[in-house]
């Protein structure tokens, strides 16, 4: 990573943490941050803390997960097979990379192929929405005894900046079955869920005049956060901290990161006025403001009926925002340190059912990666001509999660303790798909 990028990240971190109080953009000031400045005490303690935290953040790695709820058809998106019966009516088009074709539904995405790495040989055993969503969110199959954390929670735990006001993990859109949270990692790493990108998150918009709100907080500090008895000291301390953070959130100008209206009309147009487009724009804004993991949900791709026209519509809503997100991140110099993952819980059956639909299929499906050090312009893995079986380079879910960790520089063998004291690795087994990286 280059020095400019490092500086960029430092700016961003400190800008976010300071903007609240002064309203001054510190971008220029921080270009000069050096070891000497820190050593001579030019920076306040908070600044130092932020600088340290940003270092710990592995130089600002972030991840955007575009979650295709319901299981998108690989044939209608990243792995068309127009020459086989299984391909149905969907044609293939050329992309900006010679020799790689995508489905005709994704013309804008095809232009960004230089930055995209498609894995066509994903394979898993789970074909129910809930179990497969759980698996592709956590890397583990569901068990009643242990709540595995969502990958977004893990990334936030590993890379998040604990000093910032904004939540580390934001999920945008209607959660599907099997929505996962921080599980045994604890509520601290739970996703901050927003059903829509065009409204500020629930209960963060101040409902009383701010002087009155401050008076209430003040009274609460005098009466309500003191432990009534010695028994409650620990809870009272947590309570005090939470209320302070919640109040900061409500009063903080950082919350403007959640307001996509602050983007120019042309930027908003470029992302499209659709729900998913707004979600992608918000994801970019949030990552830019220091949020570590953003999940944007798009769907429902569960096309048991009428697969072709429904997939076409879903792709139309996907194509432009996805391409724009990659292009925008790249232009802002953020793509190298932002892994963008496109995936759903599984793919769809090669065989077209009598209702022109495709059913659940997990033996061979596709995932697309971009950014975060991933080498674009390539396809990994292969299936037979009809897309039914993986014939080359099978990639399991653990392999995929290892690949995420590799990109984000997270140690996948790191163990978190479960409540019963059992160490649980971030990823159990599997190997990163090395060829995905340069």
């Amino acid at each position, binding site marked *: 990573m280059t020095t400019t990028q490092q500086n960029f990240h430092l700016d961003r971190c400190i800008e976010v943490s300071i903007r609240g109080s002064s309203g001054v953009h510190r971008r220029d000031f921080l270009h000069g941050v050096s070891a000497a400045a820190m050593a001579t005490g030019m920076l306040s303690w908070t600044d130092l803390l932020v600088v340290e935290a940003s270092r710990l953040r592995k130089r600002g790695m972030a991840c955007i997960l575009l979650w295709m709820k319901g299981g998108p058809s690989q044939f209608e998106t990243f792995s068309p097979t127009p020459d086989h019966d299984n391909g149905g009516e969907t044609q293939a088009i050329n992309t900006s990379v010679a020799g790689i074709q995508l489905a005709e539904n994704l013309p804008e995405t095809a232009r960004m192929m230089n930055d995209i790495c498609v894995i066509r040989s994903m394979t898993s055993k789970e074909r129910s929405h*809930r179990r497969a969503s759980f698996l592709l969110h956590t890397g583990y199959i569901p068990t009643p005894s242990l709540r595995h954390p969502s990958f977004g929670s893990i990334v936030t735990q590993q890379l998040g900046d604990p000093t910032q006001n904004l939540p580390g993990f934001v999920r945008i859109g209607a959660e599907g079955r099997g929505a996962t949270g921080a599980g045994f990692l604890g509520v601290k790493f739970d996703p901050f869920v927003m059903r829509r990108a065009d409204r500020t998150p629930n209960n963060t918009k101040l*409902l009383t005049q701010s002087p009155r709100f401050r008076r209430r907080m003040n009274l609460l500090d005098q009466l309500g956060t003191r432990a*009534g008895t010695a028994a409650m000291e620990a809870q009272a301390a947590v309570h005090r901290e939470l209320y302070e953070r919640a109040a900061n959130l*409500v009063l903080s100008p950082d919350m403007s990161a959640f307001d996509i209206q602050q983007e120019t009309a042309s930027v908003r147009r470029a992302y499209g006025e659709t729900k998913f487009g707004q979600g992608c724009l918000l994801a970019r804004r949030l990552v830019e403001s220091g949020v570590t993991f953003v999940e944007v949900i798009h769907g429902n791709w569960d096309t048991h009926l009428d697969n072709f026209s429904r997939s076409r519509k879903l792709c139309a809503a996907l194509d432009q925002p996805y391409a724009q997100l990659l292009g925008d991140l790249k232009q802002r110099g953020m793509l190298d340190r932002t892994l963008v993952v496109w995936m759903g819980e599984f793919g769809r059956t090669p065989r077209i059912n009598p209702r022109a639909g495709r059913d659940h299929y997990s033996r061979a499906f596709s995932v697309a990666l971009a950014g975060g050090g991933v080498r674009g312009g390539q396809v990994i893995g292969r299936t037979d001509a009809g897309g039914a079986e993986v014939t080359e380079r099978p990639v399991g879910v653990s392999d995929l999660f290892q690949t995420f960790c590799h990109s984000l520089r997270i140690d996948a063998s790191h163990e978190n303790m479960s409540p019963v004291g059992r160490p649980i690795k971030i990823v159990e087994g599997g190997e990163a798909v090395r060829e995905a990286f340069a």
Partner: protein
Amino acid sequence: MNRSFPLIRTVGLLVLVLACCWQRPRLAWCEPAVESSSSRVDRLLSAEIFAQLSPGQLAPPTGDLTYLRRVWLDLLGHLPPPEEITAFVLSKDPQKRANLVDRLLNDPRFGRNWGRYWRDVILYRRTEERAMATSRILTEYFAGHFQANTPWDQIASEIITATGEVRESGSTAIIVAQAGEPENTAAEIARIFMGIQIQCAQCHDHPYDRWKRQQFHELAAFFPRVAVRPTRATGERGFQVVADDQPPRRRGKKKANRRVRGTLEHYMSDLENPTAQGQMIQPALFTTGQKLDVGVTDARRRGTLAQWVTSDNNEWFSKAIVNRLWSELIGEGFVEPIDDLGPDREPQAPRTFDFVSAEFARNGYDIKWLFRTIMSTEAYQRESRPRRQSADSPFTASRPQPLRSDQLFDVFLQVVEADQRQPDNAFRKNTRQTGPNGPRSVFQNMFGYDPSQPREEVTASIPQALVLMNSAQVNRAIRGGKPWGLGKWLREIEGDRTLVHELYLRCLAREPTAQETKTCLSYVKRTRDRRIAFEDILWTLINSVEFRYRI
């Protein structure tokens, strides 16, 4: 009457609180002539644990105010109404605590409160989302049984052997929550009714415990013929738990859609060769060593399992619920986590644990007996202290418990008087709305937690704080411009000091301290607008840490 009542109440309380402080040592529990199970429990605890302690390590008995709030929250999930607080504190009846417990055990809210608790125990571990459809009927199922004091072994048997339409039969919930899948269903039956976490043995021999992989699969072998299927008969889409004793058939003509629908027997997969069918397993219960033949019907299989699990020679059955209820009421279990009893764990106060468990079985698994016994102990009636460090002695004090979502929701409604039938009450129709988008469910999503989770891991979150401090619903509900709730009290209670006392009594079921009164009164004075000032005070009490905990 309303105008003067709070004043009388307040004066009465003051006198009484003083009196209580004066004669605190004599407030100790009364010893009946024949030794009750509760005093036997206290004696055993003393011998096992307290004998070695220095004075001061044991928390003193709690005063009437804290005790009253604790019992109300534990049994009914509500706060005591202000009139009751006064009456209870004023009463000189030496049996008043025992009488209170008896009375509340017969209140319909007791069944509902604990019905919701067990709904959460089962549904928080669901691996099948459709199980949420049982939520309501499941609550009613338990509520009805607790109300009628159905013995615990009967409830367990009904759940283990359940069949029928899912929306009509709450007893199907565990099976539905695990999609009828034999391994997960077996694991949940073992966890909930025997407090044993054997599912780790699903894939390998358990690293710590003596149960083996084979034994886990022997338990799963009671469930291969259970299935959750769509209901076809009725017009409405539903699901039912069925017993399928027919040989498996293959559905669908084309290869891609062909599915095996289940087998009549359970097979344990070969770890070396996971795609093969594996070894057929004979049903057996690992805790008692009893075995059943292969080939028997589902009804016999599950019927037999129910008998064996609930029989007196299976000590785990009694211990699981004793440990769970003890932990909920006293604040910590003999064993923790509460659903992970062993076999090779060392419980705290093992003789006490054995005694309560054996007595519970001897009393016919009478649930109200268990509540009454635990709540009559000195251990239950101590003051709260912080959760102990592992080196400290257990059961020396009560421990603060975060309110469960339903408790918090009901207390909130009670405090703002939102369930009154006033015509334009924003909460009126909503509180009765029970669908997934009703306010109770929204609250549940935000404040709910799995009751089997160790309590120190249940932490508050920022979105929770945001709901209470800055949501439209809460802000609307605490407004003082309405004919009920704060509006009514503002009109009827003239003195600011009395009103402060009233709000403390209603929100926290106690009197404010002198310092708190002073802070509130000076706030009212500074704010000038009386209504605004008291809205802020009410807001503060609802957002206080004390509001969220049972102490």
